[in-house]
């Protein structure tokens, strides 16, 4: 230790502090709950979450399974990435298919073809049938202003509902996971991270992501000011013209409502420069579902969305 007398040797970088905080939250949940599960879509936040979970419990394996609600409109390359990643890390993957719910009539396809709002009920049913008492999500407070009020531990009733007025105050690093039968807790270890922090961490830890997070040529069409990828989900419609653009995705979700942005960023370093200079938020640029109204996210969270 060259710097034993150097105070800088006892100072932490902000990413180290955020990492330590997230690991602390993971360990609290495993210490307090019987059946945690981590939501894993192959999107960058969930990939960072799984990476943190692996570090938190090393040299033991990750002590909980991962769950994916497959809308049926996921990018095929992301699903491939998802399967490879869970194999490599050695966790069990549980998948719930929204398509099953539509096929047997429990859910109806929306007129606009978007399946993002349809995820909520299959998610809640999966939580009940899996008897999960804590569900990890990659939500961050910087994403959206209703999320800015979210706690690390967010208590949900048996309908999965979020009641912002009944939230438990969270002091210091004491997280109250006490719950009654039927209730579960959503847990957000990345609460204090920003989009830029996530990317800097991906760079530092050399985390591999699905290729569509980086610049590539793709056939897309314009809708609601976003570049969407054509597919079985219902695009393009008549009058919507397919063009080839150099794009990347800032978020990865349901193909029907996740837009690509024009970008030349081919590496993590390029993305960091681009995100730092961006004049639009991640969700504002790429998520049609959040544009529905001023309180779109708050309303969906109240209904049990993440």
């Amino acid at each position, binding site marked *: 230790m060259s710097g034993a007398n150097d105070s800088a040797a006892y100072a932490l970088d902000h990413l180290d502090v955020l990492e330590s905080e997230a690991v602390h939250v993971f360990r609290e949940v495993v210490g307090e709950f019987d059946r945690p599960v981590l939501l894993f879509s192959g999107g960058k936040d969930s990939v960072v979450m799984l990476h943190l979970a692996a570090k*938190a419990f090393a040299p033991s394996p990750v002590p909980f399974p991962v769950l994916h609600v497959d809308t049926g409109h996921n990018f095929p390359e992301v699903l491939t990435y998802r399967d490879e990643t869970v194999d490599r890390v050695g966790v069990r993957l549980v998948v719930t298919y929204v398509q099953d719910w539509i096929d047997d009539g429990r859910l109806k396809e929306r007129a606009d073809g978007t399946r993002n709002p349809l995820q909520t009920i299959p998610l809640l049913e999966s939580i009940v049938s899996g008897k999960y008492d804590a569900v990890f999500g990659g939500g961050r407070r910087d994403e959206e202003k209703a999320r800015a009020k979210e706690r690390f531990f967010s208590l949900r009733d048996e309908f999965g509902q979020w009641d912002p007025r009944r939230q438990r105050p969270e002091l210091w690093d004491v997280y109250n996971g006490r719950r009654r039968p039927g209730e579960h807790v959503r847990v957000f270890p990345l609460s204090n991270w920003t989009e830029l922090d996530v990317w800097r961490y991906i760079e530092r830890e050399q985390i591999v992501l699905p290729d569509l997070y980086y610049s590539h040529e793709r056939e897309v069409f314009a809708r609601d000011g976003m570049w969407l990828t054509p597919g079985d989900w219902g695009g393009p419609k008549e009058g919507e013209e397919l063009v080839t653009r150099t794009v990347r995705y800032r978020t990865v979700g349901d193909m029907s409502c996740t837009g690509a942005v024009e970008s030349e960023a081919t590496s993590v370093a390029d993305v960091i420069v681009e995100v730092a200079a961006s004049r639009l938020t991640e969700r504002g640029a790429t998520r049609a579902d959040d544009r529905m109204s001023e309180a779109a996210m*708050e309303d969906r969270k109240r209904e049990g969305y993440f």
Partner: protein
Amino acid sequence: MTHDLLRFATAGSVDDGKSTLVGRLLHDTKSVLADQLAAIERVSTERGMEVADLALLTDGLRAEREQGITIDVAYRYFSTTTRSFILADTPGHVQYTRNMVTGASTAELALILIDVRHGVVEQTRRHTAIAALLGVRHIAVTVNKMDLVDYSQERFEALEADFKKVANSLGIEDVVAIPVSALVGDNVVDRSDRTPWYQGPTLLEFLEEVQVGIDPRDQPFRLPVQYVNRPRTAEHPDFRGYSGRISSGSVAVGDEIVVASLRRSTRVTAIDVVGEPTDVAFAPQSVTIQLADDIDIDRGDVIAAVEQPPRLTREITATICVLSDTSISAGQRLLARIGPKTVRVIVGSVVDRLDLETLEHAAHTDELTTNDVGTITLRFADEIAIDNYDDLRTTGAFILVDDQDGSTLAGGMTRS
């Protein structure tokens, strides 16, 4: 050069211009993005306002926007080239004391607003008292609306002196006063040429430069154990590690430590920081440590420096702030959470209630109700390892939980 993290809390009300100041800080550090700005401009126009209401940036809930008030703590994030910031934006009114307590509990610095025309008022004393109670050791007081008093040096300096008296009487030594106009932007991010008499830093310069960290070598080592790591895999058949986040001090391989509640001491044989082996680790790193002897350590036990262990006791006196609608009174049976430890507790007595505006203690109080701050005694079902909050924030703090519905009733700080 490390890029570090500063957590700070703001306190103040709409009248002091808090939302404008926070909005200005976010706006001038380019932390407000075009789509956010467009959204608040659209809503402001719909409501017939002439300029964008920056308060809409932080008021995230429908009820808050409709009523034009901040109900809950809002966390905001911004960064400069040298530092990242987490800002806990808390409402200032007396009925939201609990939210300010929540926001201040994780803050290293408090930013308190004063309207230069009104000076140090009751609300200022209350905000400063809460910051002091929660162990916030640094205060930046922004003297706002300087444009309305013609940037008077005399008015600013009188106020600075008044405030320092209040802060010092509460035990806060590190106070910096900054003359600003949040509306115009003077001395928030950019230096103003209208205050040539002011030689100090702008608010952002101050936030970037202030040293709030405690050197881990100045505090005794504490590791509250969250999780006992036993893989029992073919690769690691005998591994037994104790995982947690170091809450204070530092630890090195070879150090003598004590498992406080078991009164057993042993030696550290290995440390890893989130999966990477190391010789030395310090607060606030998350670690897994291995020990020379097999000791039956559980979640909630505290591993500590052998020469400065925590106190072992079944009774404490503490300051609490009541966070819920349930009152706290003598004889109540509750649960206490001290870090990862859960223990049954009985409220012994309510000693006094603190009037946050006059800073006087009113004795002979039967109960403490919502937003009350006061002193109580507690009796634990088991002996617990605990520190005084003013010495060690994490291992001196606790919450009280309702055993029936699980709600968080109060936050507490151990005094003796």
